[in-house]
């Protein structure tokens, strides 16, 4: 246990900080979420050149080619956060597709897709989930059938968060309808401008359309658009699903959210008394602080394990389950503290931050449900983390056919 940085890392941090100081005029606003602004793309080029984006990706594909170093990654992230400057472009293309292509793509696929993805000029969306395939992802029904030189795709995807401005989709389709469930799936890349694709915004309980549905009607893509072989799509997708799980749950974010709630409690008044003087809310706040501290320290432990290239084990498996729940409970406290004002929403007069805590409360519940629901997370923790037995297969005829 030594939370001090060695000289090498102290130097590195200074280097990052002086880079940020020198380039601060070039950085776009970090709340600017627009995908293709010139300023963002230019900033991405600067970050790539200096190794603050795509740091460990191979040079030949536009990366920086550095050795993976979890601690340096953390130092970069913290320095950018302290400076309130935006880091490199992230998203499902960089985080999920690129690692997949590096591992399993053809040379042509690597040459074609990786560099523009890293540069931010090619934007991807993910086509995994379907209305009938949520927790049970292997139940995808969207079909792809060979016709001449093309795959012809029909079906529907859901929860595609960036579909409305993506250039491309990486997608799971069923190519062998008669094979066993997991063996009939292929992984395919689709140009979103292809005729027959319709993107519809998907409104959620928050009242905002954070996701989309994508409908395919006789969409034709060339045969060579597949990553891996026919019927290997399940394996290809799983190679990167693990990346996604690691992306969620930033422990520093939890503590900073907690501090926002503390500020609210100091500011909000009931009958002229600050709500921080309310023993019950304050006790709930400190309870959540204990948990947020535990999660932050768990996160630091994960950084060390990653930098040692050790398996993160249980400490890693629990992050999503506990992190989402913690965020949800923090939002709950904020709403309770605000009393009747806690239900104000959107552009209502008196609403605090456009009802942000209600949005958190609902969206965090969505995160508990989505991306591997809490139930699935608990299955994984018990089976992979604790070595408990899987549930026996059921004997229903439908199930027997499927297995």
């Amino acid at each position, binding site marked *: 246990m030594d939370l001090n940085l060695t000289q090498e890392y102290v130097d590195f941090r200074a280097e990052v900080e002086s880079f940020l100081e020198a380039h601060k005029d070039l950085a776009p606003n970090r709340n600017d979420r627009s995908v293709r602004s010139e300023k963002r793309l230019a900033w991405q080029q600067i970050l790539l050149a200096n190794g603050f984006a795509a740091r460990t990706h191979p040079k030949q594909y536009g990366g920086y080619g550095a050795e993976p170093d979890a601690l340096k990654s953390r130092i970069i992230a913290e320095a950018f956060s302290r400076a309130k400057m935006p880091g490199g472009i992230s998203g499902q293309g960089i985080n999920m597709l690129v690692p997949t292509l590096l591992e399993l793509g053809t040379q042509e696929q690597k040459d074609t897709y990786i560099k523009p993805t890293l540069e931010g000029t090619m934007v991807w969306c993910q086509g995994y989930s379907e209305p009938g395939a949520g927790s049970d992802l292997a139940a995808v029904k969207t079909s792809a059938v060979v016709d001449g030189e093309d795959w012809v795709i029909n079906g529907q995807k859901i929860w595609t968060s960036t579909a409305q401005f993506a250039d491309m989709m990486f997608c799971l389709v069923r190519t062998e309808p008669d094979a066993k469930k997991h063996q009939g799936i292929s992984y395919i890349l689709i140009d979103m401008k292809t005729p027959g694709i319709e993107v519809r915004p998907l409104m959620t309980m928050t009242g905002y359309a954070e996701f989309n549905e994508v409908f395919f009607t006789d969409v034709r893509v060339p045969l060579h658009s597949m990553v891996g072989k026919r019927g290997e799509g399940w394996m290809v997708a799983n190679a990167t699903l693990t990346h996604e799980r690691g992306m969620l749950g930033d422990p520093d974010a939890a503590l900073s959210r907690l501090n926002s709630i503390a500020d609210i409690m100091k500011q909000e008044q009931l*009958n002229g008394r600050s709500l921080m003087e309310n023993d019950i809310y304050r006790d709930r706040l400190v309870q959540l602080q204990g948990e947020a501290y535990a999660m932050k320290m768990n996160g630091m432990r994960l950084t060390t394990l990653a930098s040692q290239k050790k398996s993160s084990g249980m400490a890693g498996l629990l992050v999503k389950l506990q992190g989402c729940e913690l965020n949800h409970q923090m939002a709950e406290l904020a709403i309770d503290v605000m009393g009747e004002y806690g239900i104000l929403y959107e552009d209502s*007069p008196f609403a605090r931050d456009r009802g942000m805590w209600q949005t958190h409360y609902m969206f965090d*519940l969505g995160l508990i*449900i989505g991306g591997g629901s*809490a139930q699935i997370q608990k299955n994984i923790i018990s089976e992979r983390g604790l070595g408990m037995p899987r549930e026996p297969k059921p004997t229903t005829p439908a199930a027997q056919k*499927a297995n």
Partner: protein
Amino acid sequence: MHFGLNEDQTMLQDSVGRYLEGASELALVRKFVDGDPALAADLQNGLMDLGVPFVLMPAEQGGLGMGVLEAALIQEALGRNVSPSPFTAAYGMAVMALRTCGDSDWLGRIASGEVVLGVGATEAIGGREGAGLTLSGDKVSGRASFVMGAEAATHFLLTTGEQLLIVERSSAGIEEVALTTIDKTRHVVNLDLDGAAAHLLAGNNHGEAQSKMIDTGRVLLAADTLGAATMMLEKAVAYSKDREQFNRPIGSFQAVKHMCAEMAAKLEPCRSLVWYAAYAQDNVPEEAGLTSRLAKSHVSEIGKFVARTSTEVHGGMGFTDLLGLHYWFKRIGANRQLLGGPQAVREEAAQLQGWVA
């Protein structure tokens, strides 16, 4: 002794329920939420035809002369169907206040349909943002916040904390600020008053009337949550039988079954609590204040649990707008905070029992 609904009460709830199931179906609620006021007016007419708005109105004024229990059964049906209706404020709280004060004048104007009262009681519970009213002569000034029943109100019943008064919505000196809450099936507003003409209620027992009005409001919000949560449980069970994952209905997974069992086990006793709290308002005066607070706070907590758990059982579909489950979720969320959040209401319950000064 008979703890449960009698035949008349069962019939009342059934007829209101049957009516609302059709008249307040989700597609129509969506239209209302999107800004088309038709549904609220239609429901108001439909409920008037059934006679139910006058449930608490004394028979002398042409009402049904029934009790808070009957009102709670109606409110439960409204919550179950997330129906836009000013019932809680206009025909529950306001009528209870007027009835207690013996103000036959205003009761008569309500019975004739000429007057519909919104109610602002927040200031008697705990004031924020500088809210609070002062009366000077027959002019009232200050801010009334989270005034309920604004869908249809012609007048507002407000409180200075000590005195109950009515202002006309259209009168001079009233600035109305519409609030947007998560629950768009009902409308609440803030009123900024500057010397608006105030009509004091009759009688000299305004303190008692205010207490009974708030007690009634809280019982009705608990009933509304009970109805909404019951529907969310039923929807979760139905969805879990229908939806398949891993080649089985998800309702056959122990985790899902236990989530539904926990919802049911926690919610069913709430029904008895709401019945008793409502009954106590008219029949067990020494328990009226306590049970109203226990019902409001306990049902709010269980409602929150059911709202979350049912959404989880629905998986991603529960999170989208597609099934509209969130209308129930938000209605329960709004009921929790209106007329005092659970913790504030529990503190009042403790005070009432002499457990704290």
